């Protein structure tokens, strides 16, 4: 069983990633304290997307995987988004 030249993430880099994630979490808790209306939710969701991307790219090693897998992961999220959008073509225009 081979492990082709595996990139090994350093403990320090992983800790930095965690720090970023914790910061983003704190930031999202703080910012949703303010009332920007629908904007607040959008911000919280965008921050969540950034966190998800961070986990995917760093903890889940996507940065070091082949292009196909990167495209695949992106594609899966895009497919899901399209399904949601299409459902809303019904609900929004009723």
């Amino acid at each position, binding site marked *: *069983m081979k492990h082709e030249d595996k990139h090994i993430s350093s403990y320090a880099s992983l800790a930095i990633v*965690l720090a970023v994630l914790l910061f983003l979490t704190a930031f999202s808790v703080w910012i949703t304290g303010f009332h920007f209306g629908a904007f607040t939710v959008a911000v*919280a969701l965008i921050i*969540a997307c950034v966190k998800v991307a961070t*986990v995917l790219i760093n*903890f889940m090693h996507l940065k070091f995987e082949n292009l196909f897998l990167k495209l695949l992961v992106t594609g*899966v999220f895009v497919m*899901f988004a399209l399904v949601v959008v299409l459902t809303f073509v019904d609900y929004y225009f009723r």
Partner: protein
Amino acid sequence: MSVHNTHAEHIDSETGKLGMWIFLFTELFLFGGLFLVYAVFRAKYSAEFHIAAGELNAFIGTMNTVFLLVSSMTVAMSLTAIQKGDRKLALFLVLVTILLAALFMVNKYFEWSHKFEYGIYPGSEVLKNMSHGELLFFGLYYMMTGLHALHVLVGMVLLSINVVKIKSGSVNSNHYLMLENSALYWHLVDLIWIFLFPLLYLIT
């Protein structure tokens, strides 16, 4: 680029990893159905969702988020440790991950039982007397966090299997597909929560 295992004991690591990634996609779509329902009802009942979310304890939610984020780091670090051949450290990090998961579940238990005390659970009288939007919010809350908790439990089981295998040496610096795939699964559990947290707790 291909591999040929006849009746190999170990599955090639790239093959095994691709399998796990595809399985993660299925999990994303499984939760995706619930996110779709959430989106539809949030759009329809935004004010009532806002009120209902206020009933949740954002502090516990944040604590749980922190637990899972840290546990993602510890399981990622355990992979580094096993790759470097540091068995003891890998074992320790996996155990910490399981501990953090357990803390998450304890929190969840207290959260839910607190809600039950107040009569807030699917089908309850209290819920029926709330507005439609609030009722649906809590339905989604229970179903989404419930399904997620189930996945946390499965993750804990997978990680425990890794504890046994690291101890016995069958997961080591040359063969660590099991740990790598369990870590990927665990990260998915974290990813789902990263979306759940703002949608349920922060829309106040």
